[in-house]
């Protein structure tokens, strides 16, 4: 048998193996110790890396070109409907409205059950300059005689040169606590079907000077995270006992005294949604034929309000001193709790009012207008359903104990919307 050359090579290789085993082992150990990339580095892989870097640079250059093209396009060819919007234009008129329709069934004398049109609240704002704007709230509503009457409820020229000093001139809602400044006419923004009784408007049984004509100065107080705000108001005040005349002094004052209101509130940053504050109001009333009356009104509020939850608490203390009579002190308080579950928001409110029998201006006004006096208190239960973002329906049950008149039990269904 003839052996192949490979056999002789294998025999010769086999002869050499023992001599190079150490060298081979050393080579293998060195290969294992080195990083895989270093050991696997070849000319081809280096070329690939350079290609990746080159591509990366090209992509970045393309991105930069796209940015420049976009900005040039924006500068030279305004987009569609935003053509005229490159700068602000004055006046910048904005218009909103609020309206509601109500069905009520209860035991109120003369109003057993009825559909009722609420106030059509036409709200206009217009920016005149960077610092100057106006707002007007005109309400058209039907009175007890079913006739519609328009009335300017608020009209203000507002000058806002800084966050610390704003001045409003015209007819405003007196900054008495929280509800009067947060909610105006129009029921859509309110959770419940209406305002708490005592802070209702003057022609709806309210006993406080909700409207005023004069000057309101307000702003932030540098106070760090406490978020203090102040308000100072001077106006004509409320006349009381004017019979058929307007309950708001729009163009003249019935005496030489001015109503002054001071308020302080805090919105701490460490509790978003929390607000608390106090206010003090003073006026001198001359509601002829009632003697001169010095009126003070103190309020305090603690509210917590977020889009999903609200807990409102306010206390009012009205002190009227009519010359020749005893001081009259009328307390009013309410608490309101509500929580939103998707589109449904159940709520509950409890309110307490005890009109002092010694308060001649207030009692005369209430009696003349057919509203109850004396002690009144009771709960309201309701649910609000926001079936769209601009409209809602509310169902509310009220029960009020009234010591002077009969207790009130009433169900209200309200459709409320904004436009």
């Amino acid at each position, binding site marked *: 048998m003839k052996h192949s050359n490979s056999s002789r090579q294998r025999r010769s290789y086999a002869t050499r193996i023992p001599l190079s085993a150490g060298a081979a082992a050393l080579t293998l150990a060195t290969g294992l110790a080195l990083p895989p*990339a270093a050991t*696997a*580095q*070849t000319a*081809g*892989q*280096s070329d*690939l*890396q350079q*290609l*990746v870097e080159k*591509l*990366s640079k090209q*992509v970045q250059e393309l*991105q930069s070109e796209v*940015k*420049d093209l*976009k*900005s040039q*396009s*924006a*500068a030279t060819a*305004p*987009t*569609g*409907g*935003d053509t005229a*919007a*490159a*700068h*602000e234009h004055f006046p*910048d008129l*904005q218009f*909103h409205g609020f309206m509601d329709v109500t069905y009520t069934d209860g035991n109120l004398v003369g109003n057993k059950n009825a559909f009722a049109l609420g106030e059509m609240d036409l*709200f206009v*704002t217009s*920016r005149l300059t*960077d*610092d100057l*704007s106006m*707002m007007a709230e005109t309400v058209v509503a039907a009175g007890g005689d079913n006739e519609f009457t328009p009335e300017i409820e608020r009209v*203000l020229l*507002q000058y*806002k040169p*800084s*966050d610390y000093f704003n001045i*409003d001139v015209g007819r405003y809602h007196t900054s008495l606590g929280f509800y009067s*400044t*947060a909610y*105006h006419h*129009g029921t859509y*923004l309110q959770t419940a079907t209406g305002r708490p009784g005592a802070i209702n408007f003057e022609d709806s049984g309210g006993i406080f000077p909700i409207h005023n004509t004069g000057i309101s100065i307000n702003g932030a107080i540098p106070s760090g995270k406490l978020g203090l705000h102040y308000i100072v108001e001077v106006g004509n005040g409320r006349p009381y006992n004017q019979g058929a005349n307007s309950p708001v002094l729009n163009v003249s004052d019935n005496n030489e005294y001015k109503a002054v209101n001071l308020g302080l509130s805090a919105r701490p*940053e460490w509790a978003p949604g929390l607000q608390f504050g106090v206010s003090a109001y003073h006026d001198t009333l001359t509601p002829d034929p009632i003697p001169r009356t010095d009126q003070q009104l103190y309020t305090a509020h603690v509210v917590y309000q977020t*889009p999903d939850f609200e807990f409102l608490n306010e206390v009012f203390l009205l002190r009227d001193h009519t010359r020749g009579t005893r001081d009259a002190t009328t307390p009013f308080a309410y608490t309101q709790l509500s929580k939103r579950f998707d589109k449904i928001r159940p709520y509950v409110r409890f309110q307490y009012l005890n009109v002092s029998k010694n308060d001649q201006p207030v009692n005369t006004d209430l009696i003349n207008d057919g509203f109850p006096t004396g002690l009144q208190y009771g709960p309201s239960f309701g649910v609000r359903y*926001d079936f769209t*973002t601009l409209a809602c329906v509310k169902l509310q049950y009220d029960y009020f104990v009234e010591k002077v008149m009969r207790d009130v039990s009433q169900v209200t269904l309200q459709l409320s919307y*904004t436009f």
Partner: protein
Amino acid sequence: MALVGALTLLAASGAWAADDDAVAIIVNKGSSTSGLSEDDLRKIFKGEVSRTPEGQKYIVVMLESGAERDSILKTVYKMSGADYDKYFLQATFTGKVQSAPKQFSSAGAVLKFVAQNPGAIGYVRAGDVDRFVKQVSIDGQNPGDPSYKLKSGK
């Protein structure tokens, strides 16, 4: 090395995607504002702070729709779109603000308005920021930084 190259390319692509995902707050080039805290940004957008420390009136600009608007509503306003509308309706109604933020339909329009109006402050996708506006850091972070919170979540 082919695997290493591919991985490098993928990583780079990932980094670009992170920038593209970020929502940049922009102001006029002439504005002295270069950085804001998240709280300050919220106060400005809600109208609670209406002027810069130098007295320049802020003009807040919003996009009408899109992922960037959703990010601002969620992160800055902490409100849904419906709550945002109601908030500014009430704020205008009470006189807290003079008007709601301006709204534009495109990032180009936002960029143009901010570029041409001192005091304007708005937002666009980070990748759309051009040289005519200034990007503002939030809590010391810029788009692309790991802790930057304003992302559109695309």
